[in-house]
């Protein structure tokens, strides 16, 4: 009785170890396909052929958003950056509500022959920060954070901040 339980225990632990190793190795091998999007630098390094679909992800570069409306359809030009490289993107259609300068986005489409990215769909990638409007306002007024230029400061500086009622 005792030994059969022990045998089952060791067998199970052995199987668990083998399974974890196998899963870990497969995930490492497939990590390029498990990635939902490529950053501008990866795209420039890989130089995908025009017309080949992929997802481009990064931050909407400040001061590059330019929307032109023709026949009631907006066409937006902007650059997606990872801080070092950037790629121009063209998208025709309505952008998600969270789209703004400094926001993370994922654009789905393909490179055009002229070196810009023609997006058929643009998704906004929300950050992991949750703060009330008046905290954001007071950080902005204090010059500590502008959402256009990157993520908010260290959470401990604001997540218990005492906001004056006037801020709303």
């Amino acid at each position: 009785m005792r030994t059969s339980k022990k045998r089952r225990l060791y067998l199970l632990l052995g199987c668990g170890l083998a399974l974890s190793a196998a899963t870990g190795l497969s995930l490492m091998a497939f990590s390029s396909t498990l990635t939902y999007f490529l950053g501008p630098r990866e795209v420039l390094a890989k130089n995908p052929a025009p017309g080949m679909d992929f997802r481009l992800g990064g931050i909407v570069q400040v001061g590059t958003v330019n929307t032109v409306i023709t026949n009631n359809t907006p066409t937006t030009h902007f650059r997606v950056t990872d801080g070092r490289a950037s790629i121009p993107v063209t998208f025709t259609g309505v952008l998600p509500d969270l789209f703004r300068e400094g926001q993370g986005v994922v654009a789905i489409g393909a490179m055009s022959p002229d070196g810009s990215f023609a997006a058929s769909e643009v998704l906004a990638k929300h950050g992991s920060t949750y703060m009330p409007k008046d905290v954001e306002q007071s950080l902005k007024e204090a010059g500590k954070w502008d959402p256009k230029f990157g993520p908010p400061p260290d959470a401990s500086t604001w997540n218990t901040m005492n906001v004056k009622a006037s801020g709303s």
Partner: protein
Amino acid sequence: MTYYSDMSEKILSPDAPVLGRTGSWLHRFANPGRFLRLAQPALPWLAAFSIVLTVVGIVWGYAFAPADWEQGDAARIMYVHVPAAWVAMAGYAALAVCSFFSIVWRHPLADLAAEEIGPVGAGFTFVCLVSGALWGKPMWGAYWVWDARLTSVLVLFFLYLGHIALIRAFDNRSHGYRAAAILALVGAVNLPIIVFSVQWWNTLHQGNTISVTGGSKIYITMLYPLLIASLGFYMSFLTLVTARLCAAIMERKTRALLLAAAEREA
């Protein structure tokens, strides 16, 4: 004190042979009869705590917590989505632990618990997926994307469904328990994948907001209702599983008594 044999079909039969095993503390604590005696009086308290915590967390989150500066009121879906996701994963971890006990120690209560955890865990996973989709459309611009986080949670949902089907698929219940336990343990590799997917790969799903070690990237009056709602969801899961488990044990008992009575008459 009565100890039961390993054979789950016989455990609750009043005429089951009593094996003179001294048993570990675990066996003594987790025998179905004792579980019933402990759990039944606790059930109303568990239910009351679940309801109070869930209601306080949800009402605080939806009516009193501040809206997010960027997402506005849409951020409030996190007071359902995040607790549901945590419980979905914790539930699967509990399922895996039960399956481990079932395979190694052939513990009858672990088998019954695994059978009852499945549907409840699947329910919470479903809530997580649906609430996420409803948030995704206005915020991301898509109900669904095939990124690593979303896909691995969908796999979790299918693992639950597979377990629910498999554990009930055999005429001989103990075969179902064995097979389902193996499925649950194999599926447990998905748990770290869900947790770390947002760190290992680029995903559209955002990274972790809540951190146990560092500062959480959430304002304190939004964090409190989230934690209370989560505690409420955890307690609800515990209450639902306990209630189902009590019902399952009593069902077994009734069946065994009816069978014994029929045999006496024959």
